[in-house]
């Protein structure tokens, strides 16, 4: 990014995204600058949450555990469908017959993040409808 007085040049902007923003900005009689400012304010406001550090720590452990989940899940679905899987600290903690046993083990042995999942349930990132009012700071 280069800053020249009031001008800021930004590399690697998605051209298609920029084209769409420009078209909508024109319809709303707004400048691209005002839209970029709004987007930056929203991005920052989410990170001003007092829990952002917690979110990052959970997220780091989530990624480590997710990698294991994706690697092993198909195989587990073939062998242990219907049982409960616990993953934490980047490895499989155990496979349990019931949910309560699985959650107790996760509670006692995990700290940063854990997956407790019924083997066979979808692991895809699905959409869920959120109503209003969800408010941001």
């Amino acid at each position, binding site marked *: 990014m280069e800053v020249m007085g009031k001008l800021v040049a930004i590399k690697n902007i998605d051209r298609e995204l920029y084209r769409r923003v420009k078209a909508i900005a024109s319809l709303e009689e707004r400048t691209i600058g005002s839209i970029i400012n709004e987007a930056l304010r929203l991005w920052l406001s*989410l990170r001003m949450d007092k829990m952002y550090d917690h979110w990052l720590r*959970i997220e780091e452990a989530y990624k480590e555990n*997710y990698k294991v989940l994706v690697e092993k899940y198909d195989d587990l679905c073939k062998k242990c469908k219907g049982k409960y899987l616990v993953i934490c600290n980047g490895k499989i903690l155990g496979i349990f017959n019931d949910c309560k046993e699985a959650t107790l083990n996760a*509670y006692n042995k995990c*700290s940063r993040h854990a997956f*407790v*999942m019924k083997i066979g349930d979808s692991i895809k990132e699905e959409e869920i409808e959120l109503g209003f*009012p*969800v*408010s941001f700071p």
Partner: protein
Amino acid sequence: MKAYFSQSEKPKVPMLDVTVYNPPLNKKVRLNFIIDTGFAGGILIPLDTYVSLNLHLFESTKKVGKLATGITIELRVSKAILDFDGIKIPCHAYTSLGVSKNLLGREVLEKIKLTCIPKQDKMLVEVDP
């Protein structure tokens, strides 16, 4: 458990006061939820409440929350248990950065009987074992 209309906002808001437990039932918190028929999930809670119940230790894979405007946000998902005067109902608990209100959605509403008569400020809730 208490169902009521909150007069703190106009128009008044249907609310449900419920205790939320983590899955091993060793942590709990009593929360006031806005009843939100536009939310398809169980409960949506702020991240600090989610972490205080240790719900990050019982997660499933993340979901994408879609607002009525089409904007999407990343949601963490965990298991939780709601206590309606001794009757426990499992549900999914969701959170994200910036969430500041507690919502109770259709995943829970379809498991209870709820009668709202806003004109008379009356709300009745029944939960079968």
